[in-house]
């Protein structure tokens, strides 16, 4: 049983899934917080998807870009946590989708945009096409005193980080102090959210073991197409909504089939996330298309 499922989270917070006021870094004194900044998380855009779960798929990404562009307070940067494109067996079509995706998101007002692969982008060719368009599938960057680590748990089609990447992560963390603020970005959950739906990372526990000695770690991921909050020890893991279709609450139905499209509310269950990192850090879920 998960210690903090969505229902419990909403009950605890007394919110309607819109904003999550949180001590994002529980081990970090408020007085030592870096200057205010915020970023936006896009996830699971699945450009190229065609199907009944979203008859409006051709326009959903453009609407999400418009939503972000309309925010009065523009973020410092934007991260895409994987499944930029919907999978295809055709390598030519895969590249065409990535090219069109990149064209659409180039309309974002914010030009500091960070990408990560999902299994739909990278698992069929071990990330070959992804790297041509978006560069390294795992990397780090620093922003205003916060260390960001993007992990790749999809280029191996068996959903592994792999020993090489884990060694890279360990080497990076050796350079950090125990109280450094660290944000981890992944596509799949690093923990066993729902193994029978393959909502896990085969060797994710090894990454969590490496991160656990650090007091101020938070993980943002995608893959499960819904807002979800969970803790492994002191590390919070926050899943983001999708920008193509919603998936069911873990374990709520026998199969992980997409939730039915609601023509009366085309953007229902979709959205982007604003992550404000300051003394009162908070997550705000932003719907698209009026949802």
């Amino acid at each position: 049983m998960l210690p903090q499922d969505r229902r419990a989270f909403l009950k605890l917070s007394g919110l309607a899934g819109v904003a999550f006021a949180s001590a994002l870094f529980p081990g970090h004194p408020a007085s030592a917080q870096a200057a205010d900044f915020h970023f936006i998380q896009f996830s699971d855009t699945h450009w190229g998807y065609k199907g009944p779960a979203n008859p409006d798929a051709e326009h959903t990404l453009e609407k999400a870009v418009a939503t972000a562009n309309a925010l009065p307070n523009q973020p410092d940067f934007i991260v895409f946590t994987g499944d930029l494109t919907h999978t295809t067996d055709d390598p030519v079509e895969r590249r065409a989708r990535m090219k069109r995706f990149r064209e659409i998101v180039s309309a974002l007002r914010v030009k500091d945009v960070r990408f990560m692969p999902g299994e739909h982008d990278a698992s069929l060719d071990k990330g070959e096409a992804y790297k041509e368009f978006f560069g390294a599938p795992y990397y780090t960057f620093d922003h205003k005193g916060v260390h960001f680590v993007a992990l790749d748990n999809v280029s191996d089609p068996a959903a592994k980080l792999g020993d090489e990447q884990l060694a890279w992560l360990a080497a990076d963390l050796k350079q950090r102090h125990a109280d450094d603020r660290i944000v981890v970005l992944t596509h799949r959950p690093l923990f066993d959210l729902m193994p029978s739906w393959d909502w896990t990372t085969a060797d994710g526990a090894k990454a969590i073991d490496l991160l656990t000695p650090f007091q101020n770690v938070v993980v943002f991921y995608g893959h499960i197409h819904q807002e979800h909050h969970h803790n492994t020890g002191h590390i919070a893991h926050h899943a983001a909504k999708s920008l193509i279709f919603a998936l069911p609450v873990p374990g709520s139905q026998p199969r992980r089939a997409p939730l039915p499209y609601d023509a009366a509310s085309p953007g229902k269950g979709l959205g982007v996330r604003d992550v404000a990192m300051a003394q009162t850090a908070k997550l705000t879920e932003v719907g698209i298309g009026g949802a």
Partner: protein
Amino acid sequence: MMGRRAFLLAAAVAAAGTTKLVLARTNEIRISAKKFEFNPAEVRLKLGQPVVLVLTSEDRIHGFKVPDLGLRTEIVPGQETRVALTPAKSGQIVFFCDVFCGDGHEEMGGTLIVEA
């Protein structure tokens, strides 16, 4: 659902018998994998009866994962992957492909139905 502990206990009991006896009583059930289905997708097993699942692939590498049994293997084309188990509890056990294989991968799964 069958717990991993119960399965392992049953497996240990089966292993305690003579090899000859186990082989004589073990049924083989063949399961073929291809994008994006297992055939058969429903496999009926008898409680307490040892069985060997013989897994093959018709097209590419697939995964065969049974989280409730702590079981996971890959199915490579041209090879037979054999998985021995002895159901120790009746009920339904989900299995699925955990090697991403394309558009439809998410639906590639099946059920072991253990009957008393």
